[in-house]
């Protein structure tokens, strides 16, 4: 519904909007369609198209069958879902707590803030990181994928900025009413910050879902590999070393396999987004405050 105060846009402005958004959407939809189509394409389709396929004339799910035949992919999805869900929960909790605590002028607030900001600039080396993870006994444990990602400086800064924008008057009056800091966070700040919590949660979830390098280093047991490692090895893999000795029937075209993995890696996270989207709708804050 158009709010009463909003005037009807001029046709010219309307057209420009439509062209910009429509063009951008098309520029995305077509390539994504190519990805999906290629994953469903038959060998002839791919060979005749010379690589990627716009529309499969002989659709087949052979690539997906191959992908799931080894059991590797199914397990990997479970691992990724676990790491993403648990990781996002932990990271959100840590970030919210720290961002709130540093968003007010409290004891040690500034030094802690500087501690976080410093992490934006430098990166610990691969080797020292490995040694820590090993010292903590996390090698070959899924926690090695979760704990090192429990706080992101960028997400922290974004969250903290939003928290600081929560009107001071509300907090002060709550405090006068005798609310503790815990209560204020839970009852006032968090409900007012749904949008940013949704955004940061999404950022974390995507980060956990897409991470692969830690898994390569910290996990020796292939049963614990997440989807992204499989994606890498499929998308990047060359030919099997033993292919010439095996002389077996040809597997599906590498392109369809690769695109099938891409689709598999894309779908779960794509499904989460619509649930978060409603938090970006206008008026969340006023609604909460008014209520």
């Amino acid at each position, binding site marked *: 519904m158009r709010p009463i105060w909003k005037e009807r846009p001029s046709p010219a402005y309307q057209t420009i909007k439509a062209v910009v958004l429509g063009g951008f959407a098309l520029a995305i939809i077509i390539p994504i369609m190519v990805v999906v189509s290629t994953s469903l394409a038959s060998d002839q389709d*791919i*060979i*005749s198209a*010379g*690589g990627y396929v716009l529309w499969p004339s002989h659709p087949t799910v052979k690539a997906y069958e191959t992908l799931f*035949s*080894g*059991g*590797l992919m199914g397990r990997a999805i479970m691992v990724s879902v676990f790491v993403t869900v648990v990781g996002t929960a932990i990271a959100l909790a840590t970030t919210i707590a720290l961002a709130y605590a540093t968003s007010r002028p409290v004891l040690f607030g500034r030094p802690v803030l500087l501690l976080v900001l410093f992490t934006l600039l430098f990166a610990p080396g*691969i*080797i020292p990181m*490995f*040694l820590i993870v*090993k010292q903590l006994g996390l090698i070959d444990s899924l926690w090695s994928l979760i704990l090192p990602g429990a706080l992101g400086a960028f997400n922290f800064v974004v969250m903290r900025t939003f928290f600081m924008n929560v009107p001071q008057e509300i907090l002060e009056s709550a405090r006068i009413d005798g609310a503790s800091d815990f209560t204020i966070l839970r009852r006032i700040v968090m409900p007012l910050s749904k949008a940013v919590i949704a955004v940061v949660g999404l950022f974390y979830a995507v980060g956990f879902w897409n991470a692969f*390098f830690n898994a*390569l*280093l910290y996990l*020796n*047991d*292939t*049963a614990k*590999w997440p989807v992204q*490692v*499989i994606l*890498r*090895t*499929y*998308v*990047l*893999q*060359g*030919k*099997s*070393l*033993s*292919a*010439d*000795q*095996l*002389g*077996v029937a*040809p597997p599906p*075209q*590498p*392109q369809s396999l690769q695109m099938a993995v891409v689709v598999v890696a894309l779908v779960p996270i794509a499904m989460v987004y619509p649930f978060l989207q409603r938090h970006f709708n206008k008026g969340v804050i006023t609604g909460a405050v008014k209520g």
Partner: protein
Amino acid sequence: MESRYGRRRFLGLGGAALGAVVLGPTLAGCGDGGAASGGAKASSDVALPTYKAFEGLRPELAGAESGLEPGFLQFPENAIASVQAPPLKNAVTALTETFATPPPPMGSNPMWQALNQALGADLKLTIGTDPGYPEKFATLLASDSLPDLMWLPPNQGIPNIGPMLEAKFQDLTKYLAGDAVLEYPNLAALKPASWRTAVVNGKIWGAPIPSTPFGQVMMGNPKTWAKVGGLQCKTADEFFAKCKELTRGTNYALEPAIVNMLHMFGEWFGAPNSWRVNQDRSLTHLYETDNYKAAVEYAAKLWAAKVFYPDLNLADATPKTVNGQIAAQVTVGPRATADFRAADPTLFVDTMIPFGHDGKAKPVYDMGYGTVGFTPFKKTDEGRIRELLALVNYLSAPFGTKEYLQKNFGTAGQQYSLDAKKNPVLTQAGNQQAPGLVSALQIMTAPESVIFNPAYPEDTRKVHATEQKLLQYAMRNPTAGTYSDTSSKVGPKLTEAFRDTIIDIVTGRQKMDAYDEALKRWKSGGGDKMRGEFEAVLPAGVPVTAS
């Protein structure tokens, strides 16, 4: 292109000639002398393990000392046991890399479990992937919790191999040098040329991992080349003309892997395999020769004629060669014909035999590295060393043995069955369990290579014949098996920088004058030092390069 790292790095391992190996940047190590070639001065003194060929198998097509690989038209009917007792009493851990899809883990991989049973204890593999292997190797090394075995790749940027081996790994000379190796017959069946890879600082550090001794070759789809009278040429001008003719519409003559193509052109122009040995036993590097420079100019001419496929980022030319969009590409070894068969069962690609650029000069054919490195042991006591050697002995069992079958095909009736001609063929279960595991095992331990393509016995004959033709022009890198500190330290970086300039020149981004400038930088950056070090240890047996 990342997808290129995987394939190309592996191509490099497969034994590309030095100096002009592959486009992928991470491959540079294979360049000049190779990080893992072996041994300083002392290395020439060490007694290599006594060679004792495996008896009891007669290939249909005989191999030869020259590097010619024996060809088998079918798998020997009654596989012989090469190992008397299971080698292991205790579990063994190993770091290796797979170039296939990672295998199902041990717990749910019957083939792996069967192998463990045959070995007598669990073989626990930590399977690295590409990319990420050098990082994994370095972190494990720094963490001081080394696995028992660690595959040491020759070309993935692992520097200062000598001191590293001395610090962390077991000197195996005592157990392997001379006749001592005869206790492990499958290791004694590895050729001296392969063993040289595993010698560093005059000590033997592990069993080498042989691969095809052939280097890069150019391959073309015969259906495409039929239009211009076939792939084989007599002169560079003829090749040029054919390329121009084949480039029509969306079809192109050559894959855009410039460095690899340049390597092929270099052979036609008589450029040496990495180094040229002069009459006075001094060395001249490939980049310093007029032959190579001429090849660069020739490549630039071809580029200007637009016969290269115009997407430099092309990851894998194979599908395009199969469908005719690209006429020729570079692969490793004549046996790579099998890759094209896998994509199109009706296709047997042609292999270019090098020719003199003007029809008169003698071309060369650069042999490859011949191994994919070696696998050193963590420092340990004698009992354990013997146990690990027995394990490596088992895993290096030659083609045609029971152990080979177990390692590569699993158990009859489960992972493989015999086809009409009694060749083992993987079953569906085998196809899931085998490739990732076999790849990981093969990269850390392997017997001498053979030609075997059971589905197409005719191919085996043809490949064998091609190898003989290539061997007429074969040239080996004179510094192979010697060691230069500088090369190990800065070789990869120098090669990379020089190649960047060459690619700029060929693609017209820089003029030919940039060549000498880059060469100067290469020399002062360490090239001259490298030369000195290689000259000092140049084995007397290496002949003066014919030119």
